[in-house]
Structure formats: C-alpha cells, structure tokens
C-alpha cells in the first residue's frame, strides 16, 4: 500500500474561500483516485489547509492500476475471412485492436459468428496518472475571485502558486502545476520558522513535520486551539466570558497558521456607546471577540487572535498596538455619534432625495431616491395595515407610519457611512435617543431582518409589516422594469427579499397571504403583480423544501392544493409528512394517481364525465360512492378547523372501498352510460379529497 501527499503552496488565500476550496480539492483528488482505480479498500483521504496551503493526504493507495484484459468484437466472421483468408475488414480490425491478424479468434454469440480479439491493457502507475491528471484538477478549483500572475497569463488562480509538494511514499511525483515543479520541500510559518525549506520525507509525516515548522495544518485542531486560548485569556478577568461568534472563529481559523490569543482593554467610558457599535467595530473592523460579564453586558476588554506566539515583551507590544487602534476607532465612532445627534432623524427626511436607491438602466430614467422609496413603502405599509386592522390585529399604526417615514433616514448619518452594516440599527438607536419611542425604534431596528433564512423575524407587528412592505415594494418595482433574477444571477438579492417575506409570514401571526402582500402594492403604478406572485410561490416551495426540510413530493402535493397561505401550507405539509407513513395512505395516494390518469385519458378521448340519471352502479361503485359521500362532509369540517392530521387519517379509511372498486370495476366500461357514471364517481372522489394536498403527487414505493 502506498501513501500520497499533495500540497499546493500559495500566497495568503482569502480566509473566506479556504474551507470550500479545501473540501473541493479533497473531493477532486478522491474522485480522480476512484476513477483511476487507485484507491485500495479502506483507503482514507484527509485534507488540510492554512492560509498559505491546501493539502490532501491519501492513505492506502495502490501503486498502480491492475492490468486488464479486454475482449473486442469485430465484423462478422464471414466478412472477415473469405475461404479462410483474411479480408481488408479483418486487417482493419486487427490494426485497430493492436494485434496481429493471426491472433484473431472466432467468437460465437446469439447473433452469430464474429471476429474477436483479446487485448491486454497494462495498468498505469499511480505516479504517471497523478502527474498527468493533478494539474487539471487543481487548476479547476472554484474561487470567488481569481487573478493572473504569470507572463502570458497561462492560468488564473486565487493567488500565485509558490510551491508544490507531491510525494508518493518517499518519491516525488513529477507533476507541474502553474509552472511550479513538485518537490518534497514545503514552507513553515513566515516568521516563527522563516524562509528555510521544510523537507517532507513521507506523506504521513506531513502534518507533524509542518507542526515543527510552526504551521498547524489541521483546521479542526487550530479551531480547538483558538477556543481554548480564548478561554484561557478570558479567565484573567473574573466572571468574564468571551462572546461566542462562530463566523468570527472561522475567519481567524483561516487567518492563522500558529494561533494564540491575547486579551486587551479599552477605557470603560466607551461603554456609553451602544453595544451594537462597539461590537461592530471590534468584530467587523478588527476581528476581535467581545467580552461580557455574567449579566451579558459588555466589559471593557477584547480578545484578539494572533498568528504567532510571542514572549512577554511581544505580548505587551501587540496588546498596546491593538488597544491604540481600537481606541482611535471608538473615538471616531463617538465623534460621529455626537455629530449625528445634531440633526434628528426627522430633519433628515428631506436629504433622502439626494440618496439614490436605484438607478433604472433605461435612458433618461429618473434615479429612484430613498425619498421616493420611503413614499412607496408608506403606501404599501398603509395598505397592509388596513388589511390586518380589519382582521383585528392589535398594533400601533401611528408608530408604524412614523417608523416607515424614518426607516431610511439613518443612511445619511455619519455613523452609518462609517459602519454601513449598522443601517437600521443606528436609526433605531437615534430614534429612541430622540424620544420617538420603543415601538418606532424596534420597527426601524428590525426592518432588515431576517437577513438570511437562519435569522429571526422582526419581533413586533410593526417591524414585520415594515419589513414586508419594504421588500415587496422592491421586488415589484424591480420586476416592473424587467430586473427579475435569472439563473444564478440575482444582483439585487430579490430572492433573499422574497425568502424573508415567506419567513415572516411563516413565523409571525399576521393574517396575510402571499397574494395579500403582493396586492398591497396595487396602488403603485407598477404592473408586475402576477410575476411577483409566481415568484413568491416559488420561494415558498424553496422555503418548505430547503429551510423546513419537507420532501419534494410532499411540497408539490401541498402546493398543488393551494400555495397562498404560508402557515396553512406548512401545517398541511406536516400532516401529510406524518400521514404518508401509513400503508393505507400510500395505497390511497397510488389510487389517486390512477384516478388522475384515467380522467386524463377520458378527457383526451372525449368521454363524458357525468352520470346519466338512471344508471345502475356496480356494487363496488355504489359502495365507494356511499363511503365517499359519508366521509366528505366530515373531512371538510376537519379541514376547516385545520385538523389536517385527523382529516388525512379519515381519508385513509377510504382504502377498502377504493381498492374494491379498482379490483372489480372496469372504469372505462364500453357502455357509455356506465363509463360516464364511473368517471363522475372518481372525479368526485378526487375533488372531494384533494383540498389538503394533491395526493397523486406523492411518490409511492
């Protein structure tokens, strides 16, 4: 058994791209080894990465492919040999197969006698195959942003390739990637190890050899080291803990080869700034972890993850430097906060005319300003408010309208210009500081949430309505000028906006359907409501499948019976998912599929689907009609009270009658009267019981 290591050494790769690239490289190498039959049973493929390298270790590789024997079949024997002498056809086949004519054999198969040749294909060595195929696999890696670096621009990659290690056991695999010939020389940590090359003796020695050169190549291990180091550094402050931040952990994991952590401090006076501002400065701008006390309130400390291990003097220097940077940033933030307070939000409404929301591409089109956007949002919000008010939802309408009017004004605040990710949040903090009340503040605060399908929806009705209005207006306005998302292109994040609408409706108690939301834009002069509805329905399907995890056939079945009421669709999907486990229900689903097919055929053939007055039904048909008639009103009652589980259980009891019917009755009877009656019966069954879901969509064993 052999082992193989591949390491691609690069200038620092952007942290956000490393995890995906590492996984893809592992997949590509595994696929290559599998395709070429080089993986021994029980072989193991492990991947590694640091900011400067991607690596794959394959443990349990065959030294080469097995030789294979292949049987080729050629022209018929009669054509190939005339009177025992080979013809041109025989010679051509022998040439193609790479064997002498004398080696051709007669093979007999059910079709007759043919010329055959047995060709042995020697297996290629692992080294040959890897050298030939690896460059293509490596250079095909996906990167969100690529660059050229070599003269003549022969390839694009995330950053210049600086070295390649490719070893099959202790032998270098003669592969060349982006002009770099592979060897057995890697590199260690830039500073702790320096520029001296690091000799890799064998593939399995790779992780430990690099550890000695101050590069921990195992990502999980670095993550663990960082978490422990953060814990340890935090322990110097009694009762403190660092604030968990998974994405930030991932970022620093991919920014370091030899991580350690350091606690720093800032002046407690800055704690007077809003926590959101402090955390944003620390996390987004400085990649620091915030530190909090037992009460969850911020403490005047931070943690920074270093890409080095230093002595006490170094620690003091680094702590001092980081504190200085943070202090300057906090000072700026406080300055902006104070400047912003001089112009209250209400006084900023006018200046939104000068802030562009979107510039329609049509020649001579007026740019859409945020003042315009605010006015459009107000119209939509008013319409939504009227709708929910009619259904007796309690909320503060004046606060909602105030929040809508001021929602975008923080875009003109200096603090938002500095920290754009705090839009909405800054507005709400200013609103509360300016005495506009918590309801207005909270609605402004949460107008952009949920930002993703993992995010929580706005906690208040006012915030939910504002969030719905802002997004549906954007969608309808963009659709109105032909800016729908296409394929993978969605430059205005309209899918995300629609996902948020679906999620708000799913998780709130608002009595609004998707159509209600779209129709709230009816007073605007855009004409895209139909396509916007279809778009939202498609997003609902995505939400049910990808966010809620319902099976695709359940989703199709449920949406075929109605896709406008989001929470109702979820309830039906839940009931159907539970019900489909039963054998009776599976049989009913199969029967409904059959019914649908039969009705489809009947319509194609132009058969009448109606019962003539005096037709006598077969006993099984009569029995089904009776059972169906008895169940239908009960099912309808349950459906209306949304007891979908009970309704589906009841429908499943129809099975004996349905089974007997299909066993004994030929639906498409030659007698048009009987046929019409049968068809009318199954049509009625289908209609009567498809209100919760179109069961014929359910995939049955």
């Amino acid at each position: 058994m052999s082992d193989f290591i591949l390491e691609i050494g690069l200038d620092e790769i952007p942290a956000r791209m490393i995890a995906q690239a590492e996984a893809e490289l592992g997949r590509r190498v595994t696929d290559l080894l599998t395709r070429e039959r080089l993986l021994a049973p029980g072989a193991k493929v492990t991947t590694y990465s640091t900011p400067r390298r991607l690596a794959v270790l394959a443990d349990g590789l065959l030294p080469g492919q097995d030789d294979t024997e292949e049987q080729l079949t050629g022209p018929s024997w009669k054509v190939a040999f005339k009177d025992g002498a080979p013809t041109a056809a025989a010679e051509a086949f022998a040439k193609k197969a790479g064997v002498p004519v004398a080696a051709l054999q007669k093979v007999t198969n059910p079709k007759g006698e043919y010329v055959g040749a047995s060709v042995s294909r020697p297996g290629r060595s692992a080294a040959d195959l890897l050298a030939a195929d690896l460059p293509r696999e490596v250079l095909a890696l996906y990167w969100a942003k690529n660059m050229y670096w070599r003269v003549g621009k022969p390839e694009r990659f995330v950053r210049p390739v600086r070295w390649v290690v490719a070893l099959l056991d202790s032998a270098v695999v003669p592969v060349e990637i982006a002009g770099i010939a592979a060897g057995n020389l890697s590199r260690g940590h830039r500073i702790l190890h320096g520029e001296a090359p690091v000799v890799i003796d064998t593939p399995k020695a790779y992780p430990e050899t690099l550890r000695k050169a101050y590069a921990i190549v195992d990502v999980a291990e670095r993550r663990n080291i960082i978490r422990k180091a953060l814990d340890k550094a935090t322990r110097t402050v009694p009762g403190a803990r660092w604030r968990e931040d998974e994405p930030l952990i991932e970022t620093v994991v991919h920014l370091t080869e030899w991580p350690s952590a350091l606690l720093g401090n800032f002046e407690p006076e800055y704690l007077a700034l809003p926590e959101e501002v402090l955390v944003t400065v620390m996390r987004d701008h400085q990649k620091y972890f915030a530190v909090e006390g037992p009460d969850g309130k911020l403490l005047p400390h931070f943690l920074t993850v270093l890409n080095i291990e230093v002595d006490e003097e170094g620690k003091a220097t680094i702590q001092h430097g980081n504190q200085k940077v943070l202090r300057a940033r906090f000072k700026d933030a406080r300055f902006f906060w104070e400047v912003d307070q001089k112009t209250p939000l209400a006084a900023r409404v006018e200046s939104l005319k000068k802030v562009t929301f979107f510039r329609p591409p049509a020649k001579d089109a007026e740019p859409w300003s945020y003042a315009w956007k605010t006015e459009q949002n107000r119209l939509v919000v008013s319409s939504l408010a009227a709708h929910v008010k009619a259904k007796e939802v309690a909320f503060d309408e004046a606060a909602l309208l105030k929040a809508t009017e001021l929602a975008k004004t923080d875009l003109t605040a200096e603090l938002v210009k500095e920290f754009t990710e705090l839009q909405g949040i800054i507005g709400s903090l200013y609103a509360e500081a300016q005495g506009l009340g918590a309801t207005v503040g909270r609605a402004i605060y949460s107008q952009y949430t949920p930002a993703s399908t993992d995010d929580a929806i706005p906690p208040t009705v006012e915030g939910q309505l504002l969030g719905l209005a802002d997004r549906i207006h954007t969608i309808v306005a963009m659709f109105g000028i032909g800016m729908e998302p296409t394929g993978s292109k969605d430059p205005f994040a309209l899918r995300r906006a629609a996902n948020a609408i679906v999620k708000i409706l799913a998780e709130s108690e608002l009595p609004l359907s998707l159509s209600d939301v779209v129709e709230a834009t009816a007073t605007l002069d855009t004409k895209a409501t139909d396509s916007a509805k279809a778009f939202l329905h498609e997003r609902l399907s995505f939400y049910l499948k990808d966010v809620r995890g319902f099976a695709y056939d359940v989703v199709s079945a449920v949406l075929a019976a109605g896709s406008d009421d989001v929470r109702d669709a979820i309830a039906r999907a839940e009931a159907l998912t539970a019900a489909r486990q039963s054998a009776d229900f599976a049989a009913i689903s199969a029967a409904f599929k059959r019914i649908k097919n039969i009705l489809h055929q009947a319509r194609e053939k132009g058969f009448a689907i109606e019962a003539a007055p005096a037709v006598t039904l077969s006993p099984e048909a009569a029995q089904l009609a009776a059972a169906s008639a008895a169940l239908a009103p009960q099912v309808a009652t349950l459906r209306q009270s949304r007891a979908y589980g009970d309704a589906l259980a009841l429908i499943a009891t129809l099975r004996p009658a349905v089974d007997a019917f299909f066993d004994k009755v030929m639906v498409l009877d030659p007698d048009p009267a009987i046929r019409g009656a049968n068809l009318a019966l199954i049509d009625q069954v289908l209609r009567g019981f498809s209100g919760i879901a179109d069961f014929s969509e359910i995939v049955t064993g």
Partner: protein
Amino acid sequence: MPSATLSSTPKTALTFQELLFRLQSFWAERGCILQQPYDVEVGAGTMAPETFLRVLGPRPYKVGYAQPSRRPADGRYGENPNRLFRHTQFQLILKPPPVNVQELYLQSLEAIGIDLSKHDLKFEEDNWEGPTVGAWGVGWQVMMDGMEITQFTYFQQCGGLDLDPICAELTYGLERLCAFMQDVDSVYDVVWARDPETGAEVTYGDVRLTEELQYSVYNFEDADVDRLWAHFNSYEAEAQSLLAKANAVFADETATPALKRRFPLMSTYELALKCSNLFNLLDARGAISVTERVGMIARIRNLAVGVAKVYAAQQTV
C-alpha cells in the same frame, strides 16, 4: 485604564524622514529606481505616471517614490489625530513581481526597525479598484497588531487595459506607519527630524499642521464651485482635443514613427489628473449630487482610458 507597559521601541524608532530613507535604500538595493514625488496633484501614488503608465505594456520596471496624496474630503482642519487632507504614500511598483515579493516586503519591515518576532502580522484579503482610472487588482491589507500598515495589490488591469505582465503595487502609508512605530497618538506628534547634535526635534505638526488647516478651509469653505466646474470643463476639453489629435495621428497610415512619438502624452495625462483633483474638490464642497457622481467618474475614466491606449500604442512605435 490598565495601561500596557511600553516596549522600548519608541525610543529607537525612526524619524519620519529616516523611515523614508530606509525604505528608499532598501528598495534601491533591490534594484528599484527611485523617483521623486510627481509634481501634479494626485489622490494616490497609483495615479502618478510612474505607476499608471509604467505598468502598461511588456517592459519590466521597478520603481519606488514617496507621493504626497491629496484627498480633499479627508481633511479635518488639523483637528483629527489620524485623518489628513494630504498624506504621503511610499509607492512601490515591481513589474513583474518577483516570486519572493512577500518575503522582500517582510524584509523591508525589518529594515525599518520592526522586529517581526514581537508583532502580529496578517495578510488579510483586500481587493483594490480605482474606477476613475479603470484599474483593479487583488491583494491584501497588511495588518500589524490590528493596524493596516500597507496595501499590497497584484494589479490586473489599468486604464481599462489588461496587464501582461502584471505588477505588484506596495503602498506604505508613511504617516500612519511612523505614528505606529513612534507610538504617538496623533500624526502631528510624529517626529519628522531630530538634530543629531542638539537632539532638537521637529514634528510633523510643526511642518504641516497650518497647511492642513488652511487646505480644509479652502476645500470645504472657500473653493468657488462655479470656477471649479469651469476649470474641470476646460481641462477636460483640452484633454479631449489632444486625444482626438492622437487618435487621428495613430489612425493615419502615412504618419511617421517620429510624428507618433511627438504626441504629448504626458501633458494629456496631466490634464486628466487635473480633472480628477477638481472632481475631488467639487466632491468635498458637496457640489456633486449622487446623480452626477457616476457620470463624472465616467468622464475622468474616459480620459484615463484614452491616455492609456495612446501610451500603449506609442510603446510599439
């Protein structure tokens, strides 16, 4: 405030001018020619012709220069300790980039007295784009102890033209770097020079504070918007008429190489730079609406792209 013990670094830290000397010597010893600051207003070292033009075409080039860079909107009347109307970039172009360009860069930090074993250094992704000059590249901001000390870019395109070979552009922000090394809280406290005999110090504030105040007054209060527009239009018109002439010469099959070489490319480019600076002034005066902004950037880029094309054509004459 639990104050950290100061390291001994500040006492031995370089003065502002020593910092520049060391960087210049370091890179001169590695084969760079040293240029003097360019004598037309620019917003960044990238816009000086030593970068904007030299990165075009196939000819290798290595150059370093300290470039005063003007950002009218960043002026703070000398009141903000970290923001300046005019700061100094030490700009380095390595075309093509040597394979050990990052190692060389780290050596340059050691050359200015930074002991890398006592600092935390990271290369964090930061891609650069200059829409007014049709340029972009990928690279990093180099972070030391949480502060950006250098912008490191692999240029991919300039003046709308793909670069081949590409180049590495290293931009050291001298004021900020020096304040970091001297451990002062304000750039105005940076020691610019120290008299070797008397030890008397001249600070950055002594040299520059008054002009920072005055520039802010002009940029934010006194600059006459109508005249700035008139200047802009006038410079643009002259640049355009020169570009029209260049296009005629280069389209003319009977034009001699000598005639093509005579075309005043540099002067045309300087007119474009004037427009760029005027645009920044108008912006600082709040005279450019959001609507106009994109259009203005496009006008300047048109000039820059036009110049880049003529420059490339002249190189092959």
